[in-house]
């Protein structure tokens, strides 16, 4: 949402003038209305597309009226494009187990019994999330330490920084299989290799953001610190670090999203048994489209939650430092 905040928000053209316009204001004045409309349009297109996308499948009835054909297209076993409610159903079933058939639909839908087995999507999500978080911590720390070194040691700024930037023009995910295999042959498997890939991917935004942030204090402020005869240490803690915090959090939001990607891709090359990446891979092997989509939605939700958590940490930190938002 950062870009949106930077946009000049146009004042609603017809404020609270007429009562008849209030409804239109709600619909078109703010953001909620347009977003809802567009999401609705996307869903409508999605449902409509299910028939043409799936009509080539042998399990589809060749004739019949349109309603019946749509009915069939929305409830296929292995569709090319599953309908949204099939995905919701798959999410429900793969997290809370099969629907008990002896209850009416809606109460059955919301009754949940979680079994912590490898069949459970939550189990896979947690596997991915744990390596994401470990990788994010490692990468974030590495990024901050590198940035502090780069800002304070001229040689590193000139020699290391260009390579850190150049390393991003390399498709780093291509290195992921190597890391997995090399560490695997050293006997290290499971969480750590995936976390290393996550860390490798996410240190970069943190380093770049922190270098920018640590050098963001105005020269006047730096000169002021010099007139106080402040040590480099004091300048760092009292001026540079607080000035860098907004940059840090902005980078951390990007970093945690990328480190989730790293964890997912880290699960691909060795055919890992657990995790959202493994779920995508097995789904792709066995043509379980609904399972792929459910894993994808779970990954998206995980990313959104993680970014939101960083945003929350930001707000708490800013409030603790006496800042206002």
């Amino acid at each position, binding site marked *: *949402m950062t*870009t*949106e905040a*930077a*946009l*000049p928000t*146009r004042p609603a053209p017809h404020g609270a003038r007429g009562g008849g316009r209030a409804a239109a204001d709600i619909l*078109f004045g*703010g*953001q909620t*209305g*347009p*977003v809802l409309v*567009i999401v609705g349009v996307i869903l409508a297109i999605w449902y409509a597309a299910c028939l043409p996308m799936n009509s080539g499948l042998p399990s589809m009835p060749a004739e019949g009226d349109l309603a019946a054909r749509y009915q069939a297209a929305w409830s296929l076993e292995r569709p*090319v494009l599953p309908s949204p409610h099939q995905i919701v159903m798959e999410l429900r079933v793969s997290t809370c187990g099969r629907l008990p058939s002896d209850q009416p639909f809606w109460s059955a839908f919301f009754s949940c019994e979680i079994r912590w087995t490898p069949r459970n999507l939550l189990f896979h999500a947690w596997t991915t999330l744990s390596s994401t978080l470990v990788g994010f911590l490692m990468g974030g720390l590495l990024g901050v330490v590198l940035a502090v070194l780069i*800002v304070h040691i*001229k*040689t590193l*700024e*000139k*020699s*290391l*920084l*260009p*390579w850190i930037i*150049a390393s991003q*023009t*390399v*498709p*780093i*995910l*291509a*290195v992921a*299989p*190597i890391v997995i*295999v*090399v560490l695997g*042959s*050293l006997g290290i498997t499971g969480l750590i290799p995936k976390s290393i890939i996550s860390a490798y991917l996410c240190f970069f935004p943190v380093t770049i953001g922190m270098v920018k942030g640590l050098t963001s204090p105005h*020269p006047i402020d*730096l000169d002021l610190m010099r007139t106080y005869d402040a040590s480099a240490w004091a300048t760092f803690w009292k001026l540079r670090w607080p000035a860098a915090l907004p940059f840090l959090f902005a980078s951390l939001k*990007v970093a945690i*999203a990328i480190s*989730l*990607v790293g964890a*997912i*891709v880290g699960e*691909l*090359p060795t055919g890992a048994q657990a995790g959202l990446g493994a779920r*995508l*891979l097995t*789904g*792709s092997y066995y043509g379980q489209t609904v399972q*792929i*989509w459910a894993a*994808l939605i779970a*990954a*998206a939700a995980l990313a*959104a939650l993680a*970014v939101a958590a960083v945003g929350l940490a930001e707000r708490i930190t800013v409030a603790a430092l006496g800042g206002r938002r």
Partner: protein
Amino acid sequence: MSAPAQTRNRTDGIPAALVGLVAVAAGCLWALDAVHRPDLAGQAPAWFWGAIVAIWLAAWWATDRLARAVPPAPAARRMLDLLVPILFGAFLLFLWEIVTVGAGVPLVLMPPPSAIGARLVQSLPILAEDFVQTVLRAVIPGWALGSGLGIAIAVLCDRLPFLRRGLMPIGNFVSALPMIGIAPIMVMWFGFDWQSKVAVVVVMTFFPALVNTVAGLSASGALERDLMRSYAADWATTLLKLRLPAAMPFVFNALKINSTLALIGAIVAEFFGTPILGMGFRISTEVGRMSLDMVWAEIAVAAVTGSVFYGLLALAERRITFWHPSYRRR
């Protein structure tokens, strides 16, 4: 960082640093020669590692001198800014070679750069085929299509504020999602060949282009916009003459981000299925066969491709957004 005035034009460190560098280069050549001899390879003694550490310290000292020096001529300054990272990179390669050969690291763990280079030269035809399949057939079309579509929809959003307010939050949300996950779906829809990779790349590059361009289109100043209004310029003229040019730094930012995303997208999509061609396919199969030198050769090609792609974009950016403050002479 603001340098005090008296540190401008400091050249006193350069001669000593250059002498030091020559000594370091001689030391490196000696070490490279020594480490490949049968009595040292794989069983280098302590004194050898001591010598390497000494070379390292000398190299650090010389680079430090060079990094601090500020020659008066701008051309020399630019050359120095280029030289220091190049030396650093070359030294890293040197250390990689020395450590892998000297300590006898098995090839299946970490091949030395010399082995990777030899493999690269040997398998140029295969690498070229993979390059054509992945980069020319998938990355570039997907990147152009995805970015172009993103920019076009951004202009449309600019025309229709309703669309912008509805699409922008979604765009911001989606660009933070692990879009790479759509790869298996696209492979299922568009088949194993390059079409599915193009589709993955299009989806991955669309949203960054959209989000950045929309932000860029509102980047022109209110003053300039008022000026255009006072000329009675219509929307199209304002867009073409003022707002699109003003948005160019943002657009190029998106294009650069997308150049990396496109390469990653195409390579990872090949993990989910591909004809027996392509960089991602080669990486995943050769990793399975434990021939890591081939994997590293493939990564080297990917690295050069990515850097050239990025460099070309940076050059174009410099030509098109020459007016931007970040290019002004400091």
